[in-house]
């Protein structure tokens, strides 16, 4: 689609205005939120001069700092685990055929499309009923908290990583792998020196996606968190229900900044190495 066919003047005008309004709709709330987070006024709807106070308050608030730390730990661990498991599963699905492949493929798609609330309920029941059994079996002393949150984040992140890496593998010519094998490289060496460098942008993209989703999640985390430790989004969600404060504004802007930074990194990566967000296929650019 190159738009050589422009339609009538009226149609074009409507399309442009519609697009402008939608961009305004998408960005105005974000921009206003950022602007008012610097407002020196307890009333979040009124401008009261520029200040950094709310950000300072964020830095000094122990509960928020603890929650942020839990969030970072969960994001890093769940990403590391899901990148390894997701990449392996992508390789298995794209390069091999084995018994149970279809079932596995289906199972791998479920966490992406399942409604958040259903997954949250699953995790609540699983951990409240199953944790005791697991603890007795392995002799552990786990309670709901960091570990259980990480476990549930891995459960949905494997699928996202796998989809992104698979898209990369799918679009990759196997010619180099075959050449390496023909030259008597072992499977491991072929993977290490040929396949891995080629899928690296996909793996990195999957990792960034996993971090973003982990930092984004509220519902599943809320249901797998314990009373002691919780992530920043869940903590903020609790605060929001009690009302709107400038401190929440500042915290939100920080969360927003982190997520936008992650998006920009993955978009840069996409430009250089070409992985596709969400593994959506699109035709090569024909300019």
């Amino acid at each position, binding site marked *: *689609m190159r*738009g*050589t*066919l422009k339609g009538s003047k009226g149609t074009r005008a409507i399309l442009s205005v*519609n*697009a402008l309004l939608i961009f305004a709709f*998408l*960005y105005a*709330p*974000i921009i*206003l*939120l950022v602007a*008012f987070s610097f407002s020196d006024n307890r*009333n979040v*709807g*009124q401008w009261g001069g520029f200040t950094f106070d709310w950000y300072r308050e964020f830095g000094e608030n122990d509960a928020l700092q603890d929650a942020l730390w839990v969030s970072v730990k969960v994001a890093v661990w769940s990403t590391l685990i899901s990148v390894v498991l997701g990449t*392996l*599963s992508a*390789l298995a*699905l794209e*390069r*091999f*055929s084995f*018994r149970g*492949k279809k079932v*596995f493929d289906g*199972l791998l798609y*479920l*966490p992406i499309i*399942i*409604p*958040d*609330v*259903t997954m*949250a*309920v*699953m995790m609540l*029941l*699983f951990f409240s009923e*199953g944790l005791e059994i697991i603890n007795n079996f392995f002799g552990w002393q786990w309670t709901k908290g960091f570990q259980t949150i990480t476990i549930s984040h891995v*459960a949905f992140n494997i699928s996202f990583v796998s989809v992104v890496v698979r898209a990369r593998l799918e679009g990759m010519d196997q010619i180099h792998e075959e050449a390496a*094998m*023909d030259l*008597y490289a072992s*499977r491991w060496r072929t993977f290490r020196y040929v396949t891995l460098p080629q899928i690296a942008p996909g793996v990195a993209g999957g990792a960034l996606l996993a971090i973003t989703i982990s930092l984004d999640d509220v*519902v599943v985390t809320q249901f797998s968190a314990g009373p002691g430790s919780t992530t920043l989004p869940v903590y*903020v*969600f609790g605060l*929001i*229900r009690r009302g*709107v404060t400038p401190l*929440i504004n500042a915290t*939100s802007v920080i*969360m*927003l900044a982190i*997520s*936008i930074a992650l998006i920009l990194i993955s*978009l840069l990566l996409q430009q250089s190495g070409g992985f596709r967000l969400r593994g959506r296929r*699109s035709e090569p*650019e024909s300019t």
Partner: protein
Amino acid sequence: MLVTITERDHLEEEGSVVTPEFEKAAERAESRRGFFLALPAYAYLIVFFALPLAIVFVYSFATRNRFGGTDLSGWNLEAYRKLGEPIVRNIILRSVWLALLNTAICLALGYPFAYYLATRRPLVRNVLIILVMIPFWANFLVRNYAWRVLLGKDGFVSNVFEFVGLGSREYLFTSTAVMIGLVYGFLPFMVLPLYASVERIDDSYLEASRDLYASGWQTFRKVLLPLSMPGVVAGSILVFVPSLGAYVTPEILGGAKTTLLGSYIVTQFLTARNWPVGASLSFVLMAVMGAALIVYFRKGGRNL
């Protein structure tokens, strides 16, 4: 598999004879390798996804006892029967209605927008797509919170209304607020698949249609829309399914009168302590999602 063929080539060079048995053994070895690669993720998803799902399914047939606990003995369909009661039914109907409305609004806004994006020059287009991607991936909770601030008492929207002379208005905790939040949250989910399918359409079809004296509307109705149908279906599912189970948006922007399915399920687990009803509703939600996906794949959709 190609790998198998190359493996066989090595052996042929070395002079061994390729027998059917050997071929079978090689295939089996291949299959084993694939299985072992998949095994860690497979096992993980079975233990931490399929098993929890099965537990929810089992609980939906259980009974709530007088102490708010759940008795697993004596399975029954009581929890599913409860879904027909007026209170629950109204919540289900309201959720379905809001989700449908959201899908319709997103489609109405998103289609012309996606078409606009797809017909820009490549450079402009790439920049605009990035501008759509940013809110798509930006923190969902924060995006909802932004509307909470804007729509609240003394919020920006209310102040603007007052400034214009329409009097201060508060939309917070109404279904209008929830609707705005849902459209805001899920519009990019609609735009991106629509864009992908519109962008793929060859201009010459549209030109041919115009050359044959079809009007602009006819060209849209008979050529553009049918060709972009996969995007319409994918976008609609991507918007409908999560908005049906939406929890964060109605919790932040809605009020007690606008309880939706997601919040109701959560209440069943956290406060009402009626696990069987919560479990059965979660399962119904999943069934709806499953049905939507079957429709999608029947229509020939390949990836979401």
